[in-house]
């Protein structure tokens, strides 16, 4: 009799404990958002750096003192976030390689697409990267979209992965410009591989990319498309 009481008590306790183990009563993320960073004139994707590049900042409406959240933009200039909550958001791009844009309100529901149309600071045109003998030769033209604005630096960056860029490179060649650049003048960077012989693995494919930085507060590098070359 006594044993049975204890047994029942224990069972009862378990039941009480177990009933409290309910899943939390909030719904999970139920929406997704995706889109691109696009050049307002050419409608081309504007390439970004993942590390210290521009990000998408967003604030969910309906809360007091909401924290700003951030989404990373992929290198190619597209983004995708599959874990969003259906709600109204204020979204913007953090400073990057384009003229800052106005923040915008967006209702995210189901699969939402939102493109950010921007004016990139610099367009790297006619980009050509070739291996000539034991050098990498990059030729290109720079079109700046802000009149009379100086170009600060140009560079040729190399990395094993296509995340290549100014903040993430295995080796690089940079050149300070500090002057207004004429779009019609061909720019040239010649990277002598002999000087970097211990920086890369011979025979492997490396991504090379041309970058250019406009002399504007908080500007980040603008890029051409990366090119893969076997060293």
């Amino acid at each position, binding site marked *: 009799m006594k044993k049975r009481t204890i047994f029942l008590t224990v069972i009862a306790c378990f039941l009480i404990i177990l009933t409290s183990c309910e899943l939390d009563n909030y719904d999970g993320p139920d929406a997704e958002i995706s889109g691109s960073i696009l050049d307002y004139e050419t409608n081309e994707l504007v390439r970004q750096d993942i*590390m210290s590049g521009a990000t998408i900042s967003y604030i969910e409406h309906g809360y007091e003192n909401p924290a*700003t959240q951030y989404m990373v933009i992929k290198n190619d200039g597209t983004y995708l976030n599959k874990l969003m909550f259906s709600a109204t958001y204020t979204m913007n791009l953090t400073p990057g390689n384009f003229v800052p844009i106005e923040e915008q309100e967006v209702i995210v529901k189901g699969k939402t697409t939102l493109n950010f149309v921007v004016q990139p600071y610099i367009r790297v045109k006619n980009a050509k990267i070739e291996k000539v003998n034991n050098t990498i030769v990059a030729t290109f033209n720079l079109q700046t979209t802000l009149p009379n604005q100086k170009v600060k630096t140009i560079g040729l960056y190399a990395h094993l992965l296509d995340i290549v860029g100014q*903040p993430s490179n295995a080796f690089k060649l940079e050149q300070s410009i500090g002057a207004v650049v004429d779009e019609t003048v061909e720019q040239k960077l010649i990277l002598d591989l002999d000087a970097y*012989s211990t920086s890369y693995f011979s025979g492997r494919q490396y991504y090379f990319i041309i970058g250019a930085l406009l002399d504007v*507060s908080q500007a980040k590098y603008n890029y051409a498309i990366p090119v893969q070359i076997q060293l």
Partner: protein
Amino acid sequence: MKILIKKTTYFVLSFIIFASTACTDILDLKPLDKISGEALFSDPDGVKLYMADLYYYLPVEDFNYDPIKGFHVTDGIKDKNTQGFVTDSYSLDGAESAWGGTFAESDLLWWDEAYRLNRSVNLLIAEIPNLNVDEAAKKKLVGETSFIRAYLYYGLVKRYGGVPIITDVQEYIPGETDNLKVPRSTEKDTWDFILKECDKAIANLPLDASEWGSSDRRATKWAALALKSRVALHAASIAKYWLQAPLSGTAVDEGLVGIPDSAANRYYLEAIEASDSIMSSGKYSLYKPNPANPTEAAVNYQTLFETPSVAPEEVIFIKGFVRAGNKTSHNYDWWYQPQQTANGRAHPGRMNPTLDLIDMYESYDNPGYSAPVVTTQDGMVGDANGFVAKKKYLHFNSPEEIFKNKDARLFATINYPGAVWKDVKLVIQGGLVKPNGSSIIKTKGSYTHTDGITYYTYGAESQFNYSGFDSYGAGNMTRTGFLLRKFLQEKNDVAAAWNQSTTDYIDMRYAEVLLNYAEAVIESGYNANNAQQKAKNALNSIRFRAGHTVEIPLTIENVLRERRVELAFENRAIWDMMRRRTMHTEFTARRRMGLMPLLDLRGTSPQYIMVRMYFESTITFKEKWYYRAIPGTGANGLTQNPLY
């Protein structure tokens, strides 16, 4: 039924008993192991005790500061295991042996503890007028609490920018929190508040520590001036340089981060005046300013940090470590001992000074210029990509020869390959080159030469007889070729256990004041009161103390190099880079360097070659990291810093 009645009776009865006890104060006991606020402050000794606690919690970046876990890690509450991290593990100058040197957003934080300390200070400040002591003692306490407050807010502003300034004792009314919320002040107002508190401390603190009676480690007027000199220089640098790393957003628009550059010269002037007050007082001087030769200079410099009590003329503010055990000790000798003298310590070798720092040291042959370590016959120092067989290296009979004629402070700050430490010659070797040109590098191995002698990769067979480059102990060996010597006990043996080091930490010393002065003068172009000449003399007096004999001109490069060398590993380097906004330019895909000695068996007799090499992958510092994220903005409603 009967049972039910019985139960009800019991229930009612017990309820009555409970209810009646509540009507007496029988449970309102005063705890016997705690002192009430009134009792504490009514006794001058109680105030002293309270003050000791405030000093303990000051954000002094001493031997117990870990950028990850925070201040005073040996307090018995925090996990004392810092893994050997200090702020300089994140600078250009040193690296932790096992971990990367890159910031996380969770590093260098200090918020809750800061406001807890702030409340403690405010409680005492509010109580000072009621204390049972004479006016002179009250004056000193006003000065001391202002000093603590200034020190505290400096710890906050350099991390977060403008912060809420709370100077009264806030009352919590249950259910109401809005009256506790204080918005952030602008960054400029916060710096100005700190400088004002410094002024209050300067006006009220005693001229000599002896006026405190038994304790010579409490703040004096001179400590407050030295603090002001440091604070004003920091503020000035931000005003002048913060747009080198511009940010945007609400916090910038509201002035919570950033200072208008128009304020720079006023701050520089405040730094100049505060430093000059100390310099012209005649109260302080450099410890042993005129050594006979560089060897003596090195001994003097090492002694200054090994036994700071020998140099009251230089030391302005010190954090004492009194005895082994929790709270009153640290672990520098535990973490930074070379593996060869680890003597049973499980995790030695954790601080690895970089070649980037070693390169900064001058050579006596070429005063005024850093003398990068030359390893090849062509004299080029740009390549740090490791060993290349065909390269023409310089050969040395012993690895330490390469440092010949370098600034004395190198030998007192760094344990290098071939250095003698605690009577042991340090063996730091990364590999060997066989006669046929093939090499064994950073792989345990050996080679028996034609002379019949067996040579080992790391310079010796057993891992207890060498200190470098092996992966043994996951970080017990240096990976840069260098180890820390400054601050460690060479003469005295420290027990090989946790919390045994009691070397005092010099927080402010005269050399820093001189360097603050020189930097402020040159940055602002100030030339009243013969300042340019005085600044030049200040700069050179520090160099002469290090065995130099030739004067160098006052330039910003000279001042900054001198600062990096003189104050190396005093946890200043990172803040110097922060305030001058050079972290993001120095750390853009940056790889720090080490120096690897190899035993070259290609010649007629074995000789050493030294190889410049990168020891880690790239580090990039994000510009937003100049300001840390404000915690809990959802609840406290404060404006968040940019990009958090």
